[in-house]
């Protein structure tokens, strides 16, 4: 199946083409917390939007360009630490720390990308894991940033700019706004040369090179953009939870979750990560509460099982599955 890309009027992505579909999704997201008003549901809402942001950020370099980083927590963590750092050091509103996180993440992405993009496939993935782990270990020994204990944010709001809201609603809509920015950026990329070059690189670097695609530079740009958005996701996380430590910032499970969510919904597709988040985050919460004490253990068993099943049977994710299951006729009528 062919991802359409708007350049020839086919619509912005596989799923965007039925315009109704997109409107439905947008409406659904906007109305969700107004329909599900309980704190529990809203909390899940905030979580899945945040997960969608991280996974969509990852998607740019991992899904579209095919560079499977399993170390994106290095950017997430940077974005998570800087707001609390500026607060703890200088008493600034955490918000002001966000640009620092983005700048650091972009710098790190270039430092990491330059040598590792020479490596291919599995070696590249392993390299990203190693770098993220190294950063996590270093963070846990660095007293300046709280070492293993981590940092905390403002306990009570000193003003609206501290963004410590009592309810979930403000967080939900702020996060949704950021998600919209990430997705609109991705959609814009999809239609332009940059997006085509990313997909060419994913399909075959060798062929891409022969057509003049500046492979190394393009990969670095994709990684930098992805890192910036991932850092923002980290910042949002810390704005919401008010706390960070090396594990929740730089831990491998943070990286793995981004990858799984994107892969579940459909990596390389605009709405893939969002779909993955909407399914996996509630599922995770459910399994955590169903299985009581041994909750998180079983959650990860299920996680692991899902990942293996996707990898083995449906690497294109659920979107791909949808396209196979839906009858040809219906699809041809609706996908212009």
């Amino acid at each position, binding site marked *: 199946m062919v991802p359409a890309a708007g350049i020839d009027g086919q619509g912005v992505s596989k799923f965007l083409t039925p315009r109704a579909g997109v409107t439905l999704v947008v409406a659904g997201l906007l109305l969700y917390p107004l329909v599900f008003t309980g704190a529990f549901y809203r909390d899940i809402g905030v979580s899945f939007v945040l997960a969608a942001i991280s996974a969509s950020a990852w998607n740019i370099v991992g899904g579209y360009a095919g560079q499977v980083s399993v170390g994106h927590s290095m950017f997430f963590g940077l974005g998570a630490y800087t707001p609390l750092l500026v607060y703890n050091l200088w008493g600034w509103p955490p918000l002001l720390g966000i640009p620092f996180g983005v700048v650091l993440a972009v710098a790190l992405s270039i430092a990491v990308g330059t040598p590792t993009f020479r490596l291919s496939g599995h070696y590249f993935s392993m390299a990203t894991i190693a770098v993220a782990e*190294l950063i996590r*270990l270093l963070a846990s020994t660095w007293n300046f940033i709280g070492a293993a204990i981590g940092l905390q944010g403002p306990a009570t709001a000193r003003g609206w700019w501290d963004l410590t809201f009592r309810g979930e609603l403000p967080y939900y809509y702020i996060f949704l706004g950021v998600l919209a920015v990430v997705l609109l950026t991705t959609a814009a990329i999809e239609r332009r040369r940059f997006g085509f070059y990313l997909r060419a690189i994913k399909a075959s670097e060798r062929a891409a090179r022969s057509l003049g695609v500046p492979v190394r530079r393009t990969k670095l740009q994709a990684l930098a953009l992805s890192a910036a958005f991932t850092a923002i996701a980290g910042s949002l996380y810390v704005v919401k939870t008010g706390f960070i430590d090396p594990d929740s910032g730089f831990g491998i499970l943070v990286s793995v979750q981004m990858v799984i969510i994107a892969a579940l919904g459909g990596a390389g597709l605009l709405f893939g990560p969002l779909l993955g988040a909407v399914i996996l985050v509630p599922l995770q919460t459910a399994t955590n509460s169903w299985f009581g004490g041994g909750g998180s*253990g079983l959650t990860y068993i299920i996680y*692991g099982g899902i990942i293996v099943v996707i990898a083995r049977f449906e*690497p294109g994710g659920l979107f791909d599955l949808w396209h196979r299951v839906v009858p040809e006729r219906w699809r041809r009528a609706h996908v212009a």
Partner: protein
Amino acid sequence: MVVVQVIVGGLLLGAIYALFSSGLTLIWGMMNFINFAHGEFVMLGMYVALLAVTWIGGGPPVFGVAAAVALAALGVAIYFLLIRHVARGPMLAQILSTFGLALLLRYSAFYFFSANFVSLPPTSLSGTINLAGIYLPVAQLVAGAVAIFLTMSLHMLLTRTTIGSKLLAVAEDRTAAMLMGIRPDRMQALAWGLSAGAAGIAGALMATAYPWSPSVGETFGPIAFVVVALGGFGSVLGSLYAGLIIGLIQAASAFWLGAIYKDIVVYGLFVALLWFRPQGLMGKA
């Protein structure tokens, strides 16, 4: 004297690292595939040893063989059920397949065995021995020695036997090997069996000398990666040297810098390798 003890201890542990990493490097050499669940194979080997002792009550040879056989079977099964299908597909699926497997194995172990650290009940290898002034647990000594022996055996198997040359042939050029009547599929399955089996025995060996829990896979996996990267992808002999070196570096770092720094040094070495010499000590670029 303490220094010598630290060095010897590090080398002995390094020998075990070499053993389980040799399997990982074999798979990489053959298929350009990294098994992200490899650490879990070692961990499972440790538990199989424990089960063998508690159920059958056998000594080290028994549970060593049990771990080898059980894990080898697991390795072959995983190849046929999972790896063979994803190996030719999209990269994302390949990475996720063994990653998901790692989570599955690790948390299943947590579920069945609990998160507590366990050790083997006293075996014929218990106790310490005094070698020229240094005190070494017998288990560590034997484990290290056996590990070196097995790693060398694997190297001999690959370089001196017919089956070994078939394995290497598939690693070198799959199509050419096929044209010569070698079945790549079978060879790859065999490689996975050997790889997992080696990890299993390594686990059993370690179980005689060190306590563990289901979380150890998380540390062994990355160690295996570093050893393979340092030794050169595809070179079993390289893993032997690299394993010993890494064991030594770890022990030295823990001794002089502190426990947490031992991991930092190892990872730092890994990252430095990626920058400056991705092909490792003995690998081809």
